[in-house]
């Protein structure tokens, strides 16, 4: 397990940077940005542990979103109604944008003239698209279920 630590720290660090970067884009205040970074680090750490345990990307993303949402909900006295937004910002680095792009590029490739091995191209594109749909669903459900059950206030 110790040999996985550098990889875990790497993923958590860049998860934190990605979440904080998008926090700036979403106009979070400077006081909220460290919370976004912490949520991103936690989400990526949990997802990485899950994938190291041979879970699917979708399962690991669901677990990461649940843990992030629950952790942020535990801090709602400090964060107030912004806690749901902080959890969402933390999970942004898990949004499978690259798979989405790969899926659409794959579908564009299928229509190209003189395509070699069309079946493989199509299957890879469909796999990527399904992965996007299921991962987005997993992240959304993982964020929403604790927020609803714990009755996080929106105001």
């Amino acid at each position: 397990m110790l040999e996985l630590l550098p990889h875990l720290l790497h993923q958590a660090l860049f998860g934190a940077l990605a979440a904080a970067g998008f926090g700036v884009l979403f106009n979070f205040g400077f006081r909220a940005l460290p919370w976004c970074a912490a949520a991103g680090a936690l989400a990526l750490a949990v997802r990485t542990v899950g994938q190291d345990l041979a879970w699917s990307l979708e399962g690991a993303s669901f677990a990461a979103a649940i843990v992030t949402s629950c952790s942020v909900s535990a801090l709602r006295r400090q964060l107030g109604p912004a806690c749901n937004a902080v959890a969402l910002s933390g999970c942004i680095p898990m949004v499978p944008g690259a798979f989405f792009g790969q899926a659409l590029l794959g579908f564009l490739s299928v229509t190209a003239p003189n395509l070699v091995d069309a079946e493989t191209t199509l299957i890879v594109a469909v796999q990527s698209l399904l992965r996007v749909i299921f991962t987005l669903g997993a992240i959304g459900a993982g964020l929403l279920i604790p927020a609803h059950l714990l009755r996080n206030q929106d105001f």
Partner: protein
Amino acid sequence: MEQQQDPVIARHRDLERIANMALRAGRIMMESGASVSVVHAGVGMIARGFGVEDVGMRSGYASLEITLHAGGNTITRMIQVGRLGVNHRLDQAIRQLAVRVAQGGMTVDEVEAEIGRLARDTPRHPAWVVAVAVGIACASFGRLLGVDWPAFAAVLVAGTVGQYVRHQLLHQGVNVFIVAGLIAFLAATLGGIGSILIKSNTVSLAMMASILLLVPGVPSTNAQTDIMDGYPTMGSARAVWVLMIMVFASVGVWFAEALLGLRTL
């Protein structure tokens, strides 16, 4: 003049001002990234803070409608909603205002003035700060995807330039989908050229990481939230919007790959 003294018309005018003011607050929340249920709750709190008995709302992708009932009078009004973005501080400020209005004690004039002040004065990070932050975020995404360190620098520059140009184009009113296509082409080309020049082994991944600033993460989760909250029409509209953005972004990457000789058109 005589019409102004008619008590029924006067009550309608009061109700109309409340409706328009509540809709304005709802529009800002919607344009700032709030889900439909939050917008409905916020608008309802503001209206009820002025003694409105019943509030009915309908949300479309580009408009909000409200029906208010108070003292035997009913009024329905609609407002257009602009481009849906994300502005956390403004969203939270309007929510706090809704709580204050719901507690009572504010006049319509005061609330209108406060909404205008929040829309005008809520701070935003400077464009260059946002650009650098987004560049760092894209490069970090790249590391999570597996780009090597030389490509990290290229993605950082490509993401920063891409975000800055996107900001300028959106402020000039260019269509959001065309912006997505143009920025995907620009950022992917910059990321690809930079990665090739620095002799990266992950050129294709770097090109993909360079466009991740365009991935609409908040709208895609809001789409799911809206559907789960009982607003499937709005959720579906958001999902279609997300799909369209990604189609345009993918076409931009496609052309960039063709330009760099990584793909044939």
